[in-house]
């Protein structure tokens, strides 16, 4: 549990000689700085931009606030949730999510709803999708190397092509066959089978989900980071804006100093005791002095990023549509997603009859979209908005463009090997840690990025967390664990409940028991003797041909009973195991279908 800000009592002065340099003032860097304060370590943050928050900052144009990509606040990590609420207090809205997909001139509810999808697609296409899904279940394609196969194997080719292919390719700017399957596995974590079974066994799942609602600061995510900045500065830390790290010197496996550019104030150098970096890992490698070995430098050059730009259009009316955002799946327009900021928070737009719409374009630095002038981009965005029927050209009264370079680390075919080379090299520095999305070249969400920062700060103070395990170990998605005593106990119960019966053992035991019963029953009557021994028991001979109430008959009966009960026992055990497997399969499929519901949110 993270200590609250109030734990920093007055008089608990920070040690001026114990400082941590933090490169980057995004969620990871600021969280690291915030955590340092708890340990009386003085954080000094360098942010190259003019505001904190990184990609989750809030920009402003005139009186219009807008978010760079739409950042929902939702986490399963109690410490992060606590931190958010502590920072935001009453300024943390709970927003009911509404979003749709635009595809072939129609709007589909997203998360997909069966009736809505059926009505839009029509019965023929719906049946085709269903058949394609069944086919994928019967004969999935292996090996599952890329995103296309990953999705198609789970949901069928037709559904993949209808709803996921175009948007995914817009986001990543490459064919889905070139996106690695482990990216999908990391981003789209469905409810684990274990959790699904727990929910199935111990009552309904109390599913809390990004699907239904999320939190959002009243004036956009930047409000959160401004409060972090204020808190850090108020408690003795430093947050330096417009300061770009230009050199990092090292010697004998330690970072010794950092040089940063203060703009007009020129270059300055600061000695380093500990350093936490959230700047892009490829850039970090580039500014090391002396430079890294060539393979490391080459690996850094080979890492690629997807960038992003948002064209904000000011519209002379309110309430254009009720969604917070719409995924644009049509290939005939370039826009990937459209945000309606007034639906995130009323405070994002000024009072009056106008509103702002964010047209999001995914691009790569240097490509045709990135190089377009702002005016051309605004014109194109306005034309596309009109083409989609969401506004009239005459409604659009103004606009602006924000470019966000290096927004998404790309998981291409070489990224994993490249990252391993860089990581191995950077781990040789005893006082350097990398955190955050770009710092680790991992497509982390905000909460995971923050957690890496927090744990890095704890490591500075003596802990030994493995930051690379975050997001691998911690379930992000939509599952609130059933509050049981502990997971070991749950695991024990599950293992017992879902253990298989050994068919042969059960069949043999059943056969032996049945054989012995009838054997003893026969012998008992023989021992008792009498005028008409076993006049009723001998009727079993109707089924067990050759059976008589004699000693020899007892053995014959044993054989018959053993064989019959053996078959019966085996069938019971087999069917029990079969239905158990079918039950688990059903739970697993159900869990996978749940992940389909918000697949696009994770792209």
């Amino acid at each position, binding site marked *: 549990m993270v200590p609250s800000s109030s734990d920093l009592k007055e008089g608990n002065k920070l040690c001026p000689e114990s400082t941590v340099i933090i490169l980057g003032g995004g969620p990871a860097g600021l969280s690291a700085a915030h955590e340092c304060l708890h340990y009386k370590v003085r954080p000094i943050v360098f942010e190259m931009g003019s505001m904190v928050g990184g990609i989750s900052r809030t920009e402003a144009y005139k009186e219009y606030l807008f978010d760079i990509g739409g950042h929902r606040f939702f986490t399963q990590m109690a410490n992060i949730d606590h931190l958010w609420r502590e920072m935001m207090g009453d300024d943390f809205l709970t927003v009911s999510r509404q979003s749709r997909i635009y595809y072939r001139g129609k709007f589909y509810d997203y998360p997909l709803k069966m009736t809505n999808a059926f009505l839009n697609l029509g019965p023929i296409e719906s049946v085709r999708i269903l058949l394609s899904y069944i086919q994928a279940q019967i004969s999935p394609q292996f090996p599952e190397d890329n995103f296309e196969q990953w999705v198609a194997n789970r949901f069928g080719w037709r559904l993949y092509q209808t709803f996921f292919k175009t948007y995914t390719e817009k986001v990543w700017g490459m064919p889905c066959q070139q996106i690695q*399957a*482990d990216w999908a*596995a*990391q981003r789209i974590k469905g409810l*684990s*089978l*274990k959790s699904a079974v727990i929910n199935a066994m111990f009552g309904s799942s109390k599913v809390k989900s990004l699907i239904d609602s999320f939190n959002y600061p009243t004036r956009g995510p930047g409000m959160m980071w401004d409060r972090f900045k204020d808190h850090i500065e108020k408690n003795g830390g430093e947050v330096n804006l417009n300061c770009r790290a230009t050199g990092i010197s090292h010697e004998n496996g330690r970072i010794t100093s950092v040089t940063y550019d203060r703009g007009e104030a020129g270059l300055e150098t600061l000695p380093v005791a500990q350093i936490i970096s959230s700047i892009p890992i490829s850039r970090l490698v580039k500014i090391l002095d002396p430079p890294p070995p060539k393979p490391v430098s080459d690996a850094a050059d080979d890492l690629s990023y997807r960038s992003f730009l948002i064209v904000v259009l000011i519209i002379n009316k309110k309430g254009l549509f009720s969604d917070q955002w719409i995924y644009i799946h049509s290939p005939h327009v370039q826009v990937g997603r459209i945000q309606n900021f007034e639906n995130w928070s009323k405070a994002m737009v000024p009072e009056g009859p106008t509103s702002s719409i964010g047209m999001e374009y995914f691009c790569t630095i240097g490509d045709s979209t990135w190089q377009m002038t702002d005016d051309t981009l605004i014109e194109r965005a306005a034309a596309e908005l009109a083409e989609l029927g969401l506004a009239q050209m005459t409604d659009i009264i103004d606009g602006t463009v924000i470019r966000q370079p290096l927004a998404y680390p790309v998981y291409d075919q070489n990224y994993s090997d490249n990252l391993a080379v860089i990581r191995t090299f950077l781990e040789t520095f005893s006082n350097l840690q990398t955190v955050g999305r770009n710092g680790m070249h991992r497509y982390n969400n905000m909460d995971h990025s923050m957690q890496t920062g927090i744990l890095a700060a704890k490591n500075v103070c003596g802990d030994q967390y493995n930051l690379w395990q975050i997001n*691998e170990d911690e379930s992000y998605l939509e599952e609130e664990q059933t509050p049981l005593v502990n997971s070991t106990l749950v*695991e024990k119960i*599950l*293992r*017992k409940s*879902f*253990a*298989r*019966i*050994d068919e*042969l*053992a*059960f069949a*043999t*035991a*059943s056969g*032996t*028991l049945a054989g*012995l*019963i009838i054997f003893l*029953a026969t012998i*008992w*009557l023989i021992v*008792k003797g009498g005028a008409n021994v076993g006049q*009723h028991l001998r009727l079993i001979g109707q089924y067990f041909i050759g059976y008589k109430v004699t000693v020899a008959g007892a053995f014959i009966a044993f054989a018959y009973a053993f064989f019959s009960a053996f078959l019966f026992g085996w069938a019971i055990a087999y069917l029990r195991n079969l239905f158990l497997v079918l039950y*688990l399969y059903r739970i697993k499929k159900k869990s996978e279908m749940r992940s389909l519901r918000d697949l696009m949110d994770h792209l």
Partner: protein
Amino acid sequence: MENDELNSLNEEKLFSGLLLLNAKVLGLVLGLVCGVGLFIATNWLVIKGGAHVGQNLKLLGQYFVGYRVSFVGSLIGFVYGFAVGNICGGFLGWLYNKIALLRE
């Protein structure tokens, strides 16, 4: 795919255990089922009445000495049924466990 493999390994571990029967519990359950079953079957015939009450069921007396199709007999039948069921259930569980563990 490391993560996927790890997950599937965990799931495999979780759901690939061997079921072992608790012989005592199985004996108790089977004993109760047999005992109560015989008790009810006997009393049902007693309540129905007729010229030859329980002419077939009373054949159990061949094995359960003292058993009759009467209320008292149903109590005796309960004891016998419970004992036999208990022994059978216990034996089934014990033998199954022995074989299953041997095979594992």
